[in-house]
């Protein structure tokens, strides 16, 4: 290594130093720590005792754990496809060639995402209110007797999904900028060949969007599984544990029941499940993601 290379290495490390420390203290150490503590019984105020795989065995017989797994699968399977479809649909609409004001509409569609989640949750509790809420009032106007939404164990998860569709802003913006990158010539050529709007969407636009769709699926999935604040404020996991997701269950185990060891085991199992699903999606992506043109 010559002098130049040495000085580059030194400078590179020096400038990256905050993050090197940050990664070690705030990521690597805690991740290992969670794994380590998962083998202990650890009530915060007394020292931990080693219990081997006991936490993991408890977990298999823990009814709430299986409810949480079921809720997570239910919620993500409903939310992720809807999020992708609705985001693309809204991006297509925003991509219409209207004369003026597109940035205004873009701002309006994005706006809900910057509303503080606690405020948004209270607002949606009010909208979902079975008797006086906006939603049921509206349904009554068109002659439908609305369900109890958040108060009903059947409708609580769909309610959470519905609210989440209000928060698609970043995805919409990203799809929109990808749509604007689709070369106009492709559309022109297809149009000359007699392709209609639907065919162009199916054979040009969607294939060009697939890398972004993959990115969006992964992000939506990770975020959906980590939903916390909305549930904590609106339902506290109820009714009848129907909205209990991993974030809340782990939080409760750790900070309400002070059962840190078991919470760590839950966190690791959760992480492994997320990791496996992510890998599966990446694996499947070779079949449907189109990386033409850019190499």
């Amino acid at each position, binding site marked *: 290594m010559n002098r130049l290379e040495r000085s580059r290495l030194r400078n590179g490390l020096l400038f*990256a130093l*905050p993050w090197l420390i940050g990664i070690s203290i705030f990521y690597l150490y805690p991740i290992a720590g969670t794994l380590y503590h998962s083998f202990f019984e650890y009530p915060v105020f007394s020292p931990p005792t080693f219990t081997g795989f006991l936490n993991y065995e408890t977990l298999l017989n823990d009814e709430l754990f299986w409810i949480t797994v079921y809720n997570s699968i239910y919620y993500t399977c409903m939310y992720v496809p809807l999020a992708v479809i609705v985001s693309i649909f809204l991006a297509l609409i925003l991509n*219409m060639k209207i004369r003026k004001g597109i940035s205004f509409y873009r701002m309006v569609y994005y706006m809900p995402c*910057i509303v503080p989640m606690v405020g948004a949750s209270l607002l949606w509790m009010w909208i979902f209110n079975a008797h006086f809420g906006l939603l049921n009032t509206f349904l009554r106007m068109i002659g439908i007797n609305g369900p109890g939404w958040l108060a009903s164990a059947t409708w609580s998860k769909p309610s959470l999904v519905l609210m989440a569709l209000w928060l698609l802003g970043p995805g919409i913006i990203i799809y929109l900028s990808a749509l604007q990158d689709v070369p106009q010539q492709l559309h022109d050529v297809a149009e000359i060949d007699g392709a209609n709007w639907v065919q162009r969407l199916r054979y040009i636009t969607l294939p060009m969007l697939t890398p972004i769709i993959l990115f969006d699926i992964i992000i939506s999935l990770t975020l959906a599984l*980590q939903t916390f604040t909305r549930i904590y404020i609106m339902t506290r996991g109820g009714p009848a544990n129907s909205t209990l997701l991993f974030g809340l269950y782990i939080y409760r185990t750790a900070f309400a029941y002070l059962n840190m060891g078991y919470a760590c085991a839950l966190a690791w199992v959760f992480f492994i499940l997320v990791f496996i699903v992510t890998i599966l999606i990446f694996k499947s992506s070779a079949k449907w993601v189109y990386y033409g043109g850019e190499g």
Partner: protein
Amino acid sequence: MRKKTRNLLYQIFGYAILSTIGILFFFPLLWMVSTSLKIDQQMFVYPPQWIPNPITLNHYEIVLTTTPFLKYFYNTVYYVTACVIGIVISCSLVGYSLSCIRWPGREILFYITIATLMIPFILTLIPLFMIFKTLGWIGTYKPLIIPAYFGAPFYIFLLRQFLRTLPKDLLDAARIDGCSEFRIYWNMVIPLIKPALAAIALFEFVHRWNDFLGPLIYLRDETKYPFSLALQYFQGIHEVEWGNLMAFSTLVVLPVLIIFFFTQKTFIQGVKLSGIKG
């Protein structure tokens, strides 16, 4: 002629559908403000009234007089400002290292950074809590603010995406002229990446203003609460008093909406940047 009519129809259709969906996105917020200005009897009438009559500021009065609202405001501003400063300094340094200095290992560090983006917060939460408890930092803002001075993966990723587009020859020329790395970073790169720094500052501002879980775990004393936690605490006291809850929500939401309104260009530019493939 036919083409002209078709285009006109297209325009009308475009505006109609954009506005309909726009209203759907906007209605909930309007409903919040409208509820906050209504008297209690009017809140539960059918069909619902969009325009309060009479308009009352009673709910706002209750919020401002029964809670230490100014204290909450001060706490929030303190928390947000301290984090924004930390993030801008630390992430710009790291971003510079990852894209402007050619050193062995920077690719690996970049991939690790991307990997940390995928780590669920819940996986690191408990040991971090233990560390801060050992340090005696529980009940203070330290566990919330200090990590911001050590970088955050999403912003580092964003800055790197932006820095990659800078002409590298310029930096090399400066190096040949004997400029130190720090001067290149400070005098050349920082001015060039101001738009990206503004975007991450805005993201961090909104993120911290809205942050709920962090304060929930680390703060104890009600007088130290930022808005997000204070609002939830207020909800606990005023369970179904929707007027009061919506008034407090409006007061918390409004500053962010105003800032967003004036900075939306920078903001949306930043969101776009996050979608560009590495």
